[in-house]
């Protein structure tokens, strides 16, 4: 029983993600989370603003249910499976983060500087989270998929466009962490 209270090691987590994809294929669907954002836009009325959102969003209801499940999964993991504890990240990464002003590095699941409730009263914090989300949403749709759609589903099907997208993910991520972080934090 003690095992379920431990973090899931990478060599278990990876195969379980592949099984998530397999289960979705076996129920006749595909593994891709970011398309939910488009579905939600349409459900919220974006279909009145441009053609991209004119589709039968109710046909994507199944994926919204998967998304709803991931919300419940997060709740269960934290409340019943001891999830949300501090990850044991690399000490050098912790030092780098502390020098950027992330004092919570190495002592919480998410940086409190960005995800503590005090961020709601920080203009800079809100701006950073909103910009991060905006880039994720815009980029995922522009690239036609995110980590699940391209890095897992697409690459599993040996799709060259997915490899291009994943290379892009890394160019962007490396640029943000190495070039932009020192400027904004």
């Amino acid at each position, binding site marked *: 029983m003690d095992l379920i209270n431990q973090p899931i090691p*990478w060599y278990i987590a990876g195969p379980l993600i592949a099984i998530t994809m397999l289960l979705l294929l076996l129920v006749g669907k595909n593994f891709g989370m970011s398309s939910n*954002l488009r579905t939600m836009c349409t459900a919220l009325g974006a279909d009145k603003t441009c053609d991209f959102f004119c589709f039968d969003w109710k046909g994507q209801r199944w994926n919204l249910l998967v998304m709803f499940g991931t919300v419940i*999964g997060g709740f269960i993991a934290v409340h019943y499976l001891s999830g949300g504890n501090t990850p044991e990240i690399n000490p050098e990464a912790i030092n780098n983060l502390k020098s950027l002003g992330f004092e919570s590095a190495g002592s919480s699941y998410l940086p409190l500087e960005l995800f503590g409730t005090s961020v709601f009263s920080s203009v800079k914090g809100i701006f950073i989270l909103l910009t991060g989300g905006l880039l994720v949403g815009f980029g*995922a749709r522009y690239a036609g998929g995110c980590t699940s759609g391209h890095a897992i589903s697409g690459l*599993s099907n040996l799709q060259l466009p997915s490899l*291009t997208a994943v290379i892009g993910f890394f160019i962007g991520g490396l640029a943000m962490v190495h070039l932009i972080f020192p400027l904004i934090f």
Partner: protein
Amino acid sequence: MKNIQYIIIGIFFGVIMLKSEAASWFRIYEMFQFKAFHMYGIIGSALVLGVIFVQLIKLYEIKTFNGEQITFLDKSKSVSRYLFGGIIFGLGWALAGACPGPMFTLLGAGFFPIIIVVSGALLGTWLYGLLKNKLPH
């Protein structure tokens, strides 16, 4: 009943994301700093098994639970949309420390400022829809 299966798959995925720490901003930062194998191990091992699953489905023409054919659509050929879109996504992934799956898991886990990230992601998706025809694809 069919609805339940989707929710269960989502719960399964959400628990994995949170408990494997793939939903932790710190793990994403560490990955882009090349300071740990953790995230590479998760994605890499998912991929090895994923490729095997897809090849087995194709080789043995494995059907869905309902007996229907499983089809794989090839992604349309292009470089610009995948590269530019990918770079924009990567910038956001590193900044927000969450991609479109884990951001909802974090909401359930009670990290409420993630609502700002989700709002941004919806806004970004909507902006893409507005600008789609003006962008190179």
